[in-house]
């Protein structure tokens, strides 16, 4: 069965209001630009978005926030987006802030079929409110639950027609775990090649986790903070 689709619009056409979507990326690095633009055009609302960050004003996830397509956001850091901060402080958007490592592990665990696990992060803080705590070897831990989503949007550097993915540098970030945790995972790639062309030793995400794949286009790859040395 072919996993190949033509473009992002085709990838998102069955998404319904209220669905949950995981979006890979860290800041603007490694975000699925084509899929974000497509869901923006598609117009689905009341979405539950799971992403480490919330984009910036008017780009990345920020586009969906500006158009009020997001009902709930699950993230670890949303500091680069003023409109988001405004919606959050005014209560217009529901927000679940999760420690970054816990977020990554909840997603990985969800994709790996692990319903819950214990971590030390957040013990003694407001993150622990309402959660089961337990002592192991004299140290306190919180129980956190694995997480899956209706869709996962991931972005890779290279991919093949079997759905195998390879990331470049730090553009992997949340993409790899999210690819595992989507009931339907859609991958957009900078370079799509026929199966057999990628070195199997270098694959980050085996194609079993990817249901649809397409060649992305017009990548902007915006930089949040360009820092250079003279």
């Amino acid at each position, binding site marked *: 069965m072919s996993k190949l689709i033509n473009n992002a619009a085709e990838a998102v056409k069955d998404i319904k209001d209220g669905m949950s979507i995981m979006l890979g990326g*860290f*800041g*603007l*690095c*490694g975000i699925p630009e084509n899929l974000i633009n497509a869901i923006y055009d598609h117009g689905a609302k009341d979405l539950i978005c799971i992403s*480490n960050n919330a984009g910036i004003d008017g780009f990345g996830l920020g586009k969906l926030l500006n158009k009020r397509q997001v009902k709930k956001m699950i*993230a*670890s*850091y*949303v*500091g*680069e987006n003023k409109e988001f*901060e405004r919606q*959050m*402080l005014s209560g217009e958007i529901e927000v679940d*802030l999760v*420690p*970054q*490592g*816990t*977020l*990554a*592990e909840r*997603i*990985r665990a969800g994709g790996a079929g692990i319903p819950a696990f214990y*971590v*030390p*992060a*957040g*013990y*003694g*803080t*407001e*993150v622990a409110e309402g959660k089961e705590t337990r002592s192991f070897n004299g140290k306190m831990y919180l129980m956190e639950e694995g997480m899956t989503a209706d869709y996962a949007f991931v972005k890779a*550097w290279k991919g093949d027609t079997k759905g195998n993915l390879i*990331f*470049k*540098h*730090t*553009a*992997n*970030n*949340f*993409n*790899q*775990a999210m690819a595992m945790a989507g009931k339907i995972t859609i991958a957009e790639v900078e370079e799509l090649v026929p199966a057999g062309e990628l070195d199997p030793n270098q694959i*980050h995400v085996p194609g079993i986790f990817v249901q649809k794949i397409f060649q992305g286009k017009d990548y902007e*790859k*915006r*930089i*949040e*903070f*360009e*820092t*250079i*040395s003279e």
Partner: protein
Amino acid sequence: MSLTKYDIAKRIAQELKDGYYVNLGIGIPTLVANYIPAGMDVTLHSENGLLGIGPFPKKENVDPDLINAGKQTVTYTEGGSFFDSSLSFAMIRGGHINLTVLGAFEVTDKGDISSWKIPGKMVKGMGGAMDLVAAAENIIVATTHTDKNGNPKLKKECSLPLTGVNCVKKIVSDLAVIEITEKGFKLLERAPGVSVDEIKEKTDAPIIIEGDIPEMNL
């Protein structure tokens, strides 16, 4: 005289040891990278998925696919590696990172820290800070001793939401190096020209002072 942020970073660099894997937070902690002693093997970890952070790139080498946890463009060192976020935090949670340096709003004499949220004002999220403070074996806070209004940041209790409890081991401020012991704050060193009395006055908790307190050697 109180230390500049560069001198705070310089003093923290004296805590580094050969072979260390280190996570440096945003702000003053990032500056520590500039003072790693020559010849010492220290590998910098960035929680977005990089071991071996190098200097900022030359203009022509800027790569949007290569950033640090502060979303700044960086380079990687020889022997560097890239990985996904869950593996990155396995390094942290699993105790493989030797030293974490981060900033703070408040630190208590029990090692509690608040650093991520000012209710109603600044709610940006905790990022990786809660994971880092809960798991690193050695946590140093880099901070000014008082806030911009002159209020002590070293206290008995945090007034702001906590990032973690019983975790900070040492504080390097613009006035002092303070260890957090089971009995509370213990003054180890003072900034050149800063008196013990000034440090006591600007700290909102008792400080253990044993014998003569040396000046920092910068």
